[in-house]
């Protein structure tokens, strides 16, 4: 597709590059609490944006995040003593994409509910398989990951990953695949009638999303240093990603970011002060999103903007929101 890059896109590119540049300076100012909080924010920024690549246009709620993430973590944990780290990142991406491909092939050809249900237990399934293989063929369940990486290296790597996810998302939007996804999202039977292989498009997109999430897990592995199945395949990661992405809104590429920053900070406070109440907060967050902000915060902003535009008398904008 040979659409030229428009002026506003160049503008966004500059804004994005500037934001990434500013964000990359953060470790120079703080090495303690704020850096560690920022690592979490950056992690969820990458995860949620990668999640929204697939779930945004398709409206399929994927709960497979923890499975891809755990696979990424394990790719590093198993290979750190034998293989160079960049290669392990590639393996993590391949593992994520492979699992996504299998899940996609089994479920994405049929209705969306099956997909949700399948991904619902996927992390637990992979966790059981990993635990079983380890107890059967290895002596210990846990694995150690020792590297020279410090918190700031992890932060920079996550920032780079987030940037790559953003660029990929932008590239997908401009490609045939992105165009196909927009049609599928609006009306799947129309998409089929104009000759789009809907199942294949969804599977490919899910694989891209899964690969990025796998890499995020691989980047985080050195931070845990001791890796065991329950922490690597923590199902809570999947749910938090869904909440944050939906809170921000999935219609825009930068939408999830709007949800990630406040919610990561909120969860950080809750889990340090009221560790027993995290489930309740997660539950309330889901309910709030469904009942009050179904289109996310960016949806609210856009509605407000449309209202202002309509009030100014611009009838065109009014028709668009109607």
């Amino acid at each position: 597709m040979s659409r030229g890059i428009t002026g506003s896109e160049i503008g966004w590119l500059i804004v994005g590059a500037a934001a990434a540049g500013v964000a990359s300076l953060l470790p120079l100012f703080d090495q303690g609490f704020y850096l560690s909080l920022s690592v979490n924010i950056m992690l969820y920024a990458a995860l949620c944006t990668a999640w929204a690549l697939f779930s945004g246009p398709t409206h399929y709620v994927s709960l497979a995040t923890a499975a891809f993430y755990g696979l990424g973590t394990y790719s590093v944990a198993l290979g750190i003593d034998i293989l160079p780290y960049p290669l392990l990142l590639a393996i993590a991406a391949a593992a994520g994409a492979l699992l996504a491909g299998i899940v996609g092939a089994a479920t994405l050809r049929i209705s969306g509910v099956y997909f949700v249900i399948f991904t619902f237990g996927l992390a637990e399934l992979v966790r059981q398989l990993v635990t079983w293989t380890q107890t059967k063929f290895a002596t210990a369940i846990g694995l150690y990951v020792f590297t020279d990486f410090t918190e700031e290296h992890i932060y920079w790597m996550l920032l780079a990953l987030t940037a790559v996810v953003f660029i990929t998302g932008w590239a997908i939007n401009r490609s045939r695949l992105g165009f196909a996804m927009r049609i599928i999202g609006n009306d799947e039977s129309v998409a089929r009638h104009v000759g789009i292989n809907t199942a294949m498009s969804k599977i490919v997109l899910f694989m891209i999303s899964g690969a990025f999430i796998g890499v995020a897990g691989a980047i985080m592995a050195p931070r845990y240093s001791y890796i065991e199945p329950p922490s690597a395949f923590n199902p809570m990661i999947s749910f938090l990603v869904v909440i944050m992405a939906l809170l921000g809104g999935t219609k825009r590429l930068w939408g999830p970011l709007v949800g990630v920053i406040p919610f990561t900070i909120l969860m950080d406070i809750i889990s340090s002060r009221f560790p027993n109440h995290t489930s309740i907060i997660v539950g309330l967050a889901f309910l709030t999103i469904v009942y009050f902000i179904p289109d996310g915060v960016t949806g609210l902003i856009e509605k407000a903007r449309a209202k202002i535009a309509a009030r100014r008398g611009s009838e065109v904008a009014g028709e668009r929101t109607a």
Partner: protein
Amino acid sequence: MNILVTGILLSGTYALIALGLTLQYGVARIMNLGNGETLVAACFVAFWLYTGLAINPLVGLLIIAPAAFLINWGIYVVALQPLVKRAKNRGQLEVDSILATFGLLFLLQGLMIVGFGGEYHSYNFLAQRFDILGNSYGLNRVVAFGAAVLIAAALWFFLYFTRQGTAMRAVAVDPSSANLIAIDVARTAAFAFALGGALSACGGALLSTFYTFNASMGVTFTMKALIIVIMGGVGDVRGAVLAALILGIAETVVASLIDPGLTLAATYLLFILVLLFRPQGIFGRSAT
């Protein structure tokens, strides 16, 4: 043989839980992912009734089932009906109800963790030997299975031989046509959701007589129930019972012959097979 009987006994409770979910999804069109929490709550109530007030869990069903019915009716009317009204199409409702019931799942689970703590609970009810074909089983398991069969039979009778039950089946097939023949779809849906909740609660109360439970195990049971519902075909009572039987046996076989840590893998294997070969359910007709 021993494994087979254990599996069949287990499947009785699974069937009740799955029947609850299949009513909620098949008739009320709500994929209730918080279904397992109803079950866990029923476990705790049965536990409390038995240890606190010395009420036999089977008698306790008479308290638990109506209470679960009323609470689920309330949940449907307050939390889910607005979503049904708001939804422009089936897909929209599906996404909304999944997210909303996730919210309920975590909210209820969180409240129960705060209320009961994360520890495992159990109590001794009819912990005696009972012999079937030369092997001995826990009497509590046998009794729970018997009660489950009775409840499932009552449900079948209700669905196929009463007006209200027939109305529910009509709504399951096509809500808009059901409306045309003077069925109050909204009320029927609420009734089905409440009845589904009551069934799952019965499953939970029976489960608690022989199973060690804790506040956060609901999700596992929701997962199993979902797989049973899909295997059996959404809204299909016979299918759910048969699928529960298959799942119960498969789980017991894997747990006793291979590794107890792989039960979920076994259910997933079944799930994948169903998705690949019979996505419309065991008795379902293929949509052409």
